[in-house]
């Protein structure tokens, strides 16, 4: 694995980690470079962000079905 380019696994892992703490400038640049070229990882990044939005709404579902 080259040091200057991320594999999909590295990019996906960093996308997930970036939701917890902001990556350093170098990592962020490599990640962006990867996401610009790789639709698969871009999809993954959008989808895990969506899953977080959904998770925040989960408690609303507990209010439904009779209460």
């Amino acid at each position, binding site marked *: 694995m080259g040091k200057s380019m991320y594999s999909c696994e590295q990019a996906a892992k960093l996308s997930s*980690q970036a939701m917890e703490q902001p990556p350093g400038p170098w990592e962020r640049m490599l990640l962006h470079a990867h996401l610009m070229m790789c639709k698969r990882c871009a999809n993954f990044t959008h*989808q895990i962000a969506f899953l977080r939005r959904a*998770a925040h709404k989960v*408690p609303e579902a507990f209010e439904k079905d009779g209460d």
Partner: protein
Amino acid sequence: MQDDKDWAKSLEAHRKYLQRYALFHLHDAALAEDAVQDTLIAALAQSHRFEGRSQLRTWLTAILKHKIVDLVRKRGRGLPANTLSLDENDSSDASFTSKGAWIDPPAEWGLPDAALESQQFWRVYQECCRLMPQRYGLVYSMREVMDLSSEEICKKLNISTSNLHVILFRARLRLRACMTRNWFGTEHG
């Protein structure tokens, strides 16, 4: 000021909500019942602490979160021991080849936010959360549903930040794959 009986009654009105909340995180009806019972008892004793600045349900949920985390810690529930022994190179749920390429590359989900309005979507979502291995599912739901901070979770479960990141990454991979198989990759999505 409400008297004790009214207070107990207004707490009772939230029991079902609290039970669903606890069950979602604990996956165990008896444990969930314990957490809710502890919460309502604590709330009964602490009526003077509720200042009416927040909604009663919000206040009760905050107590419940603590009770859930306490129960998890006390009973182990596979944490933190199993989490600590988590093998960083565990390939049992591999999403990538040995060279780091996607085995099953993520396709587009279209405009997923429309699904948030569908009751059926929520059933699938909850089922996918339930199907996650406990050690991933609980950390994921503490982070994303309880909305506890990373620092708080690491401290409470006594795990390292990098461990937390690995667990959350694996949980997200699984949940994403499950939602693709059962929702977005089907006629719903």
